[in-house]
């Protein structure tokens, strides 16, 4: 049985006047029903572009899938006609965006916007779709759903708008829900509500979730698998526990190490990753991370690391991940039994 969603060595480049921006440069992962994939990366890592590519929302030109494939239930999305892609979008694969204020149309009522995918994809009548929309609002925890469906987006708070977006995404019962930084713009107590809601929904509907974020705390909460991206490339991929407790790539380790924590005892100086993220037009030669890597070796400037399986289901794109001694160097800040030594 083919996986629900499979991204196979995707390369999506933007051809601009200033040069070729390699926004996504070698990303692979699979996703099964009922599972959550956390895609972690900073700005410029290519995580949003990957999501947009799956939805085929990237404008082409200037974007172009240079190589690789995206398959939904075994069928290639890239090879589909525009009509077939539209049948998938919002229907089988739905997306939630970061800023609910700009992703909801301010001139239409909330209920109408939630009903829209139902009218489009399920051919429901407007009345039936409206009733279904009210029902969905109830499911996502909006009180007084009948009245509130008649509101406009600006009458909703940030958290409620995000719930409305989730309702809209869930309208057709999608198999895959892509959430692009869904809680970044929200307060932490509201974020907790939204994440809880998403987990409840996933339990009920068995849909798969791709959670894109820069917040490692959020993925620790939600993700079964984690994909770490840097400068357009996938640098680590594996089960969530493995990636957190046994990181194989220096960037992953650097990220974990640089986080201030509010639950561990020591308060020593933070260990940041030095330097700046690279320009996607002028990527460093060899491994894109090597100028900032604390463990770089001469080979890193020339070798072109590819995501390879190091342990069972745990992939890394570092030339030396397979070397146990190399990985030992990483001072593990967080270890399995909750012990929080500062590492040595």
């Amino acid at each position, binding site marked *: 049985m083919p996986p629900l969603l499979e991204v196979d060595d995707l390369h999506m480049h933007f051809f601009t006047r200033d040069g070729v921006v390699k926004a996504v440069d070698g990303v692979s992962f699979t996703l099964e029903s009922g599972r959550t994939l956390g895609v972690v990366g*900073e700005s410029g890592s290519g995580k949003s572009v990957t999501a947009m590519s799956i939805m085929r929302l990237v404008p082409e030109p200037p974007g172009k899938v240079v190589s690789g494939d995206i398959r939904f239930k075994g069928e290639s999305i890239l090879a589909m006609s525009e009509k077939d892609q539209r049948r998938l979008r919002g229907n089988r694969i739905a997306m939630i965006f970061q800023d609910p204020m700009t992703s909801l149309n301010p001139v239409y009522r909330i209920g109408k916007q939630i009903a829209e995918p139902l009218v489009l994809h399920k051919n429901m009548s407007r009345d039936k779709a409206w009733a279904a929309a009210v029902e969905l609002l109830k499911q996502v925890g909006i009180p007084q759903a009948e009245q509130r469906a008649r509101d406009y987006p600006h009458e909703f708070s940030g958290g409620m708008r995000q719930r409305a977006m989730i309702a809209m995404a869930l309208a057709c019962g999608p198999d895959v829900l892509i959430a692009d930084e869904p809680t970044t713009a929200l307060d932490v107590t509201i974020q907790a509500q939204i994440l809880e809601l998403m987990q409840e929904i996933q339990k009920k509907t068995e849909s798969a979730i791709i959670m894109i974020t820069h917040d490692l705390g959020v993925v620790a909460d939600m993700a079964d698998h984690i994909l770490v991206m840097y400068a357009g490339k996938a640098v680590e991929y594996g089960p969530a526990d493995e990636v957190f407790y046994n990181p194989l790539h220096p960037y992953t380790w650097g990220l974990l190490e640089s986080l201030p924590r509010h639950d561990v005892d020591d308060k020593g100086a933070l260990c940041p990753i030095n330097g700046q993220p690279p320009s996607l037009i002028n990527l460093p030669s060899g491994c894109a991370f090597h100028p900032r890597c604390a463990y770089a070796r001469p080979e890193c400037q020339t070798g072109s690391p590819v995501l390879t399986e190091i342990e069972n289901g745990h992939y890394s794109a570092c030339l030396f991940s397979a070397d146990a001694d190399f990985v030992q160097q990483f001072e593990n800040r967080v270890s399995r039994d909750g012990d929080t030594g500062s590492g040595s």
Partner: protein
Amino acid sequence: MTALLQVENLMKHFPVNQGVILSRVGRTVKAVDNVSFAVEQGETLGLVGESGCGKSTTGRCINRLLEPTSGSIHFAGTDVRKLRGKDLKAYRRDVQFIFQDPYASLNPRMTFGEIMSEPLVIHGVGTRKERQDRCKEMLEVVGLSPEHIHRYPHEFSGGQRQRVGIARSLMLRPKMIVCDEPVSALDVSIQAQIINLLEELQKEFGLTYLFIAHDLAVIRHICDRVAVMYLGKIVELGGWREVYNSPHHPYTQSLLSAAPVPDPEKQRARSRIILRGDVPNPIDPPTGCRFHTRCPIAQFPICSEQEPPLRLVGSGHQAACHFAKTFPIPESRMTSGEGYDGDPAEE
């Protein structure tokens, strides 16, 4: 010893305008409502809270970017609110401000050199050459190359611009700096760099910080004492250890519990308090205790009628709750069955 900064009963109300032809004052938003705290020389006090809690407004009242509606602010014994003209300008040498947005806090049409030397120019410090030297020196202190004084902000990344913003605030050798979310707009891997920089500078120049942020982990790391704010009021105030390890106010407990931790096993093992509902509208705050509408341990009628004052609950530790630490949060209110981490009944 009197504290370097003493704030008492600070209030900042914003009128909500009504009227078509002329703006008349209708209702008010009580953005900061009776806030009091002190900051000692050399320490870092954190103001933490979610959006709308009034932390940024408080910061801006301190350096009079906003004029307080009432209350008192004393800096090194001087009444800040009474300062005018030259004295106000002199105050601005001692108390500086670092802004959140590295893209909006630097004038795009000025070079780094012009941006950094502006405080010196305004206060008539040094000759042109001396100012330029100080700029170059400061760029190095914050980890940038001195050649960049002739470059423009848009040529640089957010992290580098924020360094210049920090450098600018140091030019007049201030005594205290109000940092308004200085790392929130930066990438995670850069945040750590800037946090380290701020800590080093504090040691090197003997600075006092009022650190405003919403990220609990950052606050805990950098602050000596922490004030938790909700809807314009301070609900808990104390040393970082006290506030984070034994929070007394239910909001603090909820906040700590809601913030996700980058550790899957810990995250699974935690019991989470998920607050219901949204933050109330600050124009119409709830009566009595402002938190009572979302509080997991609210008791009626007292919580909806009487506003709890900040009460001492430990050494140097205050909380504004009628039931601070006298009630454990009941099991039924938690989302998983495990015991509650910072159980108020325990000591």
